[in-house]
């Protein structure tokens, strides 16, 4: 099993979610995060005070996939989340340890 984390643009969330569910992904967890990579921040001004805001709001998705699903999921995310501009985000893939469904206690692939 693998954990696929993707940091994507806010407005891409619906598109990526729809594409993933179509590709067979049963569930995911989404959180609002801030971050930066190569995309520069912006300036904000409040009366006399000027601030450079480096951290930009993004959305992070966390999906647990079986090993054979991994490539499909990654390709789906790449296709649906990409705009071609700096700031599209990144995908992180890590090995998953245990996976358990709370309601039934199922483990492993049965809990996906």
């Amino acid at each position, binding site marked *: 099993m693998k954990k696929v984390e993707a940091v994507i643009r806010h407005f891409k969330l619906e598109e990526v979610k729809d594409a993933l569910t179509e590709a067979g992904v049963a569930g995911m967890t989404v959180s609002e995060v801030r971050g930066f990579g190569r995309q520069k921040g912006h300036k*904000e001004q*409040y*009366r006399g*005070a000027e601030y450079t805001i480096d951290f930009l709001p993004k959305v992070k998705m966390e999906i647990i996939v079986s090993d054979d699903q991994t490539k499909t999921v990654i390709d789906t995310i790449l296709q649906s989340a990409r705009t071609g501009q700096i700031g599209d985000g990144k995908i992180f893939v890590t090995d998953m340890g245990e996976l358990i469904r709370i309601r039934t206690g199922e483990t492993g692939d049965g809990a996906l």
Partner: protein
Amino acid sequence: MKWVKYAALIALLMYGLSGRPIVAQESEEPAAAEEEAAVDPVIDAIGIDGGDTAWMLVSSALVLMMTAPGLALFYGGLVRKKNILGVMMQCIFLMGIMSIVWALCGYSLAFGKDVLGGFIGGTDYMLMKGVLPIWTGNAADYPMAGTIPRLVHMVFQLMFFIITPALICGAYAERMKFSTMVVFSVLWGLLVYCPIAHWVWSDTGWLFNDPWTAFDFAGGTVVHISSGFSALVCCLVMGKRLGFGQEPMPPHNLTYTCIGAAMLWVGWFGFNAGSALGAGALAANAFVATHLAAATGVLAWAGMEWCTRGKPSILGACSGAVAGLVCITPACGTVTPLSGIWLGAIAGVGCFWACTTLKSKLGYDDSLDAFGVHGVGGTLGALFTGVFASQAVTGHNHPLGLIEAVLADEAALGLHQIRNQAVSVVASAAIAVVGTFILLKVLDAVMGLRVSQEDEIKGLDLSQHGEEGYIYL
């Protein structure tokens, strides 16, 4: 048990303040024919004008709304999330304590007859004597203040007594101890606000009468210069917020600030037009002048931002409106609405400069620009009242302001008025600065002014009030 003792004490105090006799008297049973007199005591109020009284009651409510939710939201949105309740508590609690202090003694100190050589008023209205209705033996008598019951005059002025110290909160936001703020505000109200109000608004006040008559219709000196200069002293004495200049401290919710500013704008109609103490032509002039000054203030400040930075901001537009409103406050009963446009522009530009260039040059942490908007705006308004004042508004039989006087070939009269305005500015700023400085030093020694560093980092909401403003998870 302790609580029984306290409850008994409070009950006794309330009975004492109610004015009822300790010894029971025979209660007369009203005859059926006398029921009408008992039902409508207004009949016994000599010279009452229903229109004036109605407008003054509404104005009083409008001014109260300016403190909360107006100022509470306006200031609340400008501070960091962890301090929103701190701001709101300051507003609400001041509504509580300043009301009682004013009703019981502040009103008397401001509007009573001269004592101490005219420095302050006397005990004429202490504990609402001469304000509350009394039984004359055969009628209910409501003391009058012109065409309105004195009760109404008292409660209208009460709302000003609340909001003025609340304005100072803008200077020490996010770092002042709540207990000290309460004590400071009460003492400041009695020792700084009441004298200035006495000088400017009471019949015997030295700034109200010749030869020093200064025109301050709704409180340019009493409210804005006093709070603005006191705010400057506060932020200089108390020092900057931790992390000021290094950590970003942007407003956590400008939507609140905008809503609050809109409420201030609407409430200001009560503040300014209500200062006519009646519903007539003067109130109409004040109302329209107020509105046009606010409107021009929006355009001026936003315009300055548009020119100097390329983007007009909502904070700029709202600040401009407030600056215009501050500036027109002393002037609205003596200048025409057309001059109100000038005053709005002057304030929009002047306060913009004070809040950006002046503040960053001198480096003080006036967290919410209490000095930049109220101190500077009030000063501009008080001085320019002397320029734009017009006999067409007031009915004086001689030219009033500098422009009018020069056009009538009587420049000396106009210069005289400008001098008087300047004196009122200096006098009110002086007592504000000196009084505030002394109060702060004394309270620092007795109670401490700032919260501890740890409490400041934790935020006032948690450290002073044990609450969180926003609980999302």
